[in-house]
């Protein structure tokens, strides 16, 4: 019975695919496999079904892969189960294969442009292994790095991480090895290690994906960090909203302890480490290290001034190392293959790979891991396939609420920690949100400030009051009653925040405003001077209009309007609006026309999105209502 399955059917069960009913797909495949395995043929051998973590291409989920044949199916539904099982070891089932712009079916994942440009280190196991089965992780070389580290002197472990050039993936980009060395230099005991899984940046979900899909790699990384700094206790702080991540990490901790990789005697070495999960309470500021530690201690998650760094005095006043999920997932690789090997990838100042969540108005969105130094253009066009519906590119927002928006002229920028900072954006946690000409940059700036305003803990005045004031100014500009002095005032407030706020949340809070002002000032000016929103987004300044010349009378806008503001008019010539029934009769005679009731229009843009003929246009509200 020790028969090893020849083939594996890997069903992606990440949160994205689960939202698309992956569980039903997996169940249907299991049933279909059982039925099919009754008459196992020698050539096809036995097939094992595995529920894996996220493959990254969530947009096309659920994803099912056949291993080792390297066949990938996308947008699988339960009813496809039999066809998929029939295709195992045979001709691939064509309707579910990936098709690019040339419409040719792509069988192998490496040939799929979304994956072809990726280099996977942090995500190396995700989508390949069952996160709930530690044997899968062990077969993939798991916990070998920990065993190797147990035999290494502390200095050597730290030296390897320093040599790798690994920098914190959570936002600040501080060199991980240096942080470890520094914590190690304080004689005070006990010391603690903490994994920061309080992923709060809107638009970034790599930490969730790693915790769900490969929890052992994070646990192993954290265990190695503990060895390096001499900690015997550690915490994984994970957002409570990430239910599946909490569940999978809890199961992985138990399995690792059962196998002796955690506990009172790690692999018989006599070393101790106990790890536990702390569920975050849903406060963005808790991503800030000192706030997170305060939260772990059981208090309100407010940051403190960092005159003394947490590597010296962190949790309960003891030396504490805090690393991000993605950072820790890289650590086992570095210990196994050596720092020099890791440092071969990347740029001079930023080594290795970075996981980005490429989302927004891009054709292929999802989670991608690319070497540091890749250009924005390559990310958007090679990996992402370009802008959705082939609309013009306007901006890419990087680094979440602490980052900035970069314009088209910077598309050839090579992405690393330094280059983005130089242009007033940042790598941050790795959100990459692509925006097209239908995204209003003033509204985006308002969005981030409004977000941070809600998340500011309120402890320091510049952040609490400054953000509120900035939000009011930006809301005024969006509503069309901005003052000419607004831009100067925004810049002044931004400067004040940068200089005087207590923590990184406040210090970087003005970045989205400053970068949009820098690169998209003309949009601010259009709002201020002409009461016009060029992107056609701000509802106070915009209404939709149907261009009767371009309109083909398909009725898509009419169906899409959620408030019934699109009216069907009688055939050309008749002026009065008629009800739907009558219009149906008139259709044969002549095509109907559509018109937007400017008083009822909420400028939500549903009609504009629905129109395939560019016949719905956003126009300045005043021009129509006057």
């Amino acid at each position, binding site marked *: 019975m020790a028969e090893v399955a020849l083939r594996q059917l890997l069903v992606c069960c990440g949160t994205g695919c689960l939202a698309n009913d992956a569980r039903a797909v997996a169940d249907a495949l299991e049933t279909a496999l059982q039925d099919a395995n009754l008459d196992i043929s020698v050539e096809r051998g036995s097939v094992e079904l595995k529920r894996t973590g996220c493959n990254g291409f969530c947009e096309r989920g659920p994803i099912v892969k056949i291993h080792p044949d390297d066949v990938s199916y996308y947008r699988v539904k339960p009813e496809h189960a039999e066809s998929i099982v029939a295709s195992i070891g045979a001709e691939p089932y064509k309707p579910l294969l990936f098709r690019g712009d040339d419409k040719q079916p792509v069988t192998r994942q490496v040939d799929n442009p979304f994956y072809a440009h990726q280099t996977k280190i942090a995500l190396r196991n995700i989508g390949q292994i069952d996160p709930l089965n530690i044997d899968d992780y062990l077969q993939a070389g798991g916990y070998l790095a920990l065993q190797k580290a147990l035999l290494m002197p502390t200095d050597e472990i730290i030296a390897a991480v320093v040599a790798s050039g690994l920098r914190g993936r959570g936002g600040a980009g501080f060199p991980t090895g240096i942080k470890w060395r520094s914590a190690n230099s304080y004689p005070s005991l006990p010391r603690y290690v903490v994994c920061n899984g309080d992923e*709060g940046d809107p638009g970034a979900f790599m930490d969730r994906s790693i915790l769900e899909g490969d929890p052992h790699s994070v646990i192993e990384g954290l265990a190695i960090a503990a060895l390096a700094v001499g900690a015997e206790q550690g915490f994984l702080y994970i957002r*409570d909203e990430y239910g599946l991540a909490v569940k999978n990490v809890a199961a992985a901790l138990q399995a690792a302890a059962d196998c002796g990789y955690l506990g009172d005697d790690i692999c018989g070495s006599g070393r101790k480490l106990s790890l536990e999960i702390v569920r975050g309470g849903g406060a963005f500021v808790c991503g800030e290290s000192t706030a997170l530690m305060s939260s772990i201690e059981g208090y309100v998650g407010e940051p403190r001034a960092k005159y003394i760094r947490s590597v010296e005095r962190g949790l309960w006043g003891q030396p504490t190392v805090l690393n991000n999920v993605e950072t820790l997932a890289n650590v086992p690789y570095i210990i196994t293959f050596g720092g020099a090997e890791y440092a071969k990838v990347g740029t001079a100042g930023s080594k290795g790979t970075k996981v980005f969540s490429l989302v927004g108005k891009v054709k292929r969105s999802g989670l991608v891991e690319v070497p540091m130094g890749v250009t924005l253009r390559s990310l958007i066009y090679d990996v992402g396939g370009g802008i959705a519906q082939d609309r013009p590119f306007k901006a890419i927002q990087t680094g979440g609420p602490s980052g900035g928006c970069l314009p088209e002229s910077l598309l050839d920028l090579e992405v690393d920690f330094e280059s983005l900072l130089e242009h007033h954006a940042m790598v941050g946690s790795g959100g990459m949100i692509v925006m097209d000409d239908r995204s209003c940059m003033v509204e985006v700036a308002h969005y981030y400030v409004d977000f941070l305003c809600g998340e500011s803990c309120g402890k320091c005045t510049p952040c609490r009051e400054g953000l509120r004031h900035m939000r009011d100014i930006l809301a005024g500009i969006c509503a069309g009653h901005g003052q000419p002095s607004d831009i100067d005032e925004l810049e002044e407030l931004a400067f004040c925040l940068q200089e005087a706020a207590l923590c990184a949340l406040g210090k970087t809070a003005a970045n989205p405003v400053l970068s949009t002002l820098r690169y998209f000032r003309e949009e601010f000016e259009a709002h201020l001077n002409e009461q016009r929103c060029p992107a056609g987004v701000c509802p106070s300044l915009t209404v939709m209009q149907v261009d009767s010349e371009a309109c083909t009378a398909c009725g898509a806008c009419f169906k899409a309007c959620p408030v019934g503001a699109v009216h069907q008019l009688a055939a050309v010539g008749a002026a009065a609006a008629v009800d739907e029934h009558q219009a149906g009769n008139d259709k044969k005679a002549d095509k109907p026309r559509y018109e937007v009731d400017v008083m009822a229009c909420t400028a939500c843009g549903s009609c504009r999105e629905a129109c395939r003929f560019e016949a719905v246009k956003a126009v300045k509200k005043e021009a129509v209502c006057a």
Partner: protein
Amino acid sequence: MVEKTEAEQIQEIIQHYPGQRRHALAAMQDMQHCFNYLPRAGLVALAEHMHCPLVQLYSMATFYKALSLKPKGRHIIKVCDGTACHIKGSMSMIDGVQRHLKISPGDVSADGQFSVETVNCLGTCALAPVLLVDEKHFGKVTLGQLPQVIDSYKPGGGNDG
């Protein structure tokens, strides 16, 4: 009778944790999951168990978004307003929910059936715009589909279990 059950449930949750301050948040989260809000009796009992002033627990209850002092609806509709969802029209989605249920984000419907909230990011950005009802994600939702999704959680609807 009902009160006694609540008290028992509270004790069960609290006794699961040692009386150390650092477990306060976890115990409060469990209470929130259990009752859909933090009953005052629960906070009082927890303060006693943790040997800390009630006011400190109150400050946590009002600080962390996951905790609430008011009962929430039977079904919690979370409209994601992360950046990816935002630029794909989450504001219209919030308006749409408001129009359909006649309640604003943060409120509970009169019949206690629904709570509406906006959340920062659900981490399913590739499916934007996203709606989370209880534990179920609805990805790439259009304004047209919205009433149908919500109605399935009304009494007698397919998802009102």
